[in-house]
């Protein structure tokens, strides 16, 4: 149980060659309470991964600071487990070894092996313990990465689209599993997703990010009782609200992109916010 406090953080990528720098977001503040489950939603490229990496201590913010518990984040540490957007498995280790790699430092070899096997079973990979990453499918790699992060049992869990490449059934199962783990161990979870329903289903709060300029647009508190029912009117209402705001974000981008080409007829063809078109995912 740790509080994550993000205070007035700015991230700018300098570009020496072209002599122009790119500011992803600035003055971004967000506090994630101990044991809270917070989702980050936003259009592609708005800085969700960047923010997660700053909390992880992997990227340095240009200004501002991030505190986890009482300590200001300067570098990565095993108190914050990360599921990356890419699988990030060591190609020279087998599936089992990859998971053990994360916990080897905490426990003895035999114990680590047992522990790792347990989590790999959870993601249905016990048949592939001794396979190398290049022998796995995209979804299988992602599942290894999930097993690895969960097995570490960190206080703060940072997950960057962890279920993106999974089929709906596996995803459903892992939703339950993550919720179960979260409730049992009261982890603080920061969760990036593109799936509005997923975010409503899982989180206490949903942070909506925007782009150009980047930053937080709106924060929703999800006040629905768990387990949540996607068919309930409140659920649908929230979904529509979020969809509308995100829709506005993307319309902005599209206008910028298309410039003079921005043909309103084509735009209306390409883009709609009505419920029927919006929830077709």
């Amino acid at each position: 149980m740790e509080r994550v406090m993000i205070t007035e953080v700015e991230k700018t990528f300098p570009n020496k060659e072209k002599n122009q720098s790119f500011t992803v977001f600035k003055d971004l503040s967000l506090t994630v309470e101990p044991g809270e489950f917070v989702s980050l939603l936003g259009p592609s490229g708005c800085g969700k991964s960047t923010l997660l990496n700053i909390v992880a201590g992997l990227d340095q913010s240009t200004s501002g600071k991030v505190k986890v518990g009482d300590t200001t984040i300067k570098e990565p540490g095993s108190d914050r487990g990360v599921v990356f957007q890419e699988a990030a498995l060591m190609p020279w280790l087998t599936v089992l070894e990859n998971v053990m790699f994360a916990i080897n430092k905490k426990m003895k070899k035999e114990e680590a092996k047992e522990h790792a096997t347990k989590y790999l079973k959870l993601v249905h990979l016990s048949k592939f313990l001794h396979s190398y990453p290049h022998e796995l499918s995209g979804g299988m790699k992602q599942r290894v990465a999930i097993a690895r992060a969960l097995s570490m049992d960190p206080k703060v869990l940072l997950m960057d689209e962890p279920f993106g490449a999974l089929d709906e059934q596996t995803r459903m199962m892992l939703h339950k599993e993550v919720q179960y783990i979260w409730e049992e161990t009261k982890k603080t979870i920061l969760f990036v997703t593109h799936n509005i329903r997923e975010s409503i289903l899982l989180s206490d709060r949903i942070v909506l990010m925007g782009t150009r300029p980047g930053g937080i647009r709106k924060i929703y508190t999800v006040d629905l009782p768990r387990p949540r029912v996607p068919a309930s009117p409140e659920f649908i209402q929230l979904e529509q609200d979020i969809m509308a705001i995100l829709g506005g974000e993307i319309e902005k981008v599209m206008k910028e992109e298309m410039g003079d080409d921005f043909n309103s007829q084509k735009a209306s063809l390409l883009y709609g916010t009505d419920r029927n078109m919006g929830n077709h995912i």
Partner: protein
Amino acid sequence: MFPSPSGSVQQLYIGLFETGILATALAESLQRIVIGFTLAVLIGGFLGVLLGVSKIADETLGSLVIALQSVPSIVWLPIALVVFQGGAGAIYFVVILGGTWAMTLNVRMGIKNVQPILLRAAKTMGYKNTELIWKVMLPASIPSALTGARLAWAFGWRALMAAELIGRGGLGRTLMDARDFFNMDLVVAIMIIISCIGLIVEYFLFSKIEKKVLSRWGLTNSGS
């Protein structure tokens, strides 16, 4: 004048089993190359990691390495003789100098080429500094290091041949004696020996490791 295949084989046979000079020289040289190569790989590996990891080291020590690596063995030899008082250390020194750069530069590049995401992942699992080097950087740069080791082996031999001129026996010495007395068949016989050792080491060491590594990494696409 020109060496003949039959003559070379004959010289090889004589040298190994009759006069025994090739056998003796081979034993001496083998010992030197094995020790020298091992040290070159270790030192080169260490330097390579250092240069790959630390910008400061790369810009100071790295420049020194670059400045010195072009200096040929024949120049190092007299210096080594003075430093090591003519002892056997001089030979090892020259052999190590011959092989170390190749190893250093290859490991350095291997380290620099490690996919950033792997380092980042390991860092979030609590790996730091030397552990990060041992557990991520070195395994990830094995393909590069392997090339470095191959070159260290080859250039170690070359340096050894030059170093053995100082009169402490070995194949290099026999080679030069044979050359001075124009026994080209024996020169070729020694080349055969060196080549055979090279092939043996390649097949039983480097190639085995490489096949294993490439297939683990899933990099066997380039074949056929």
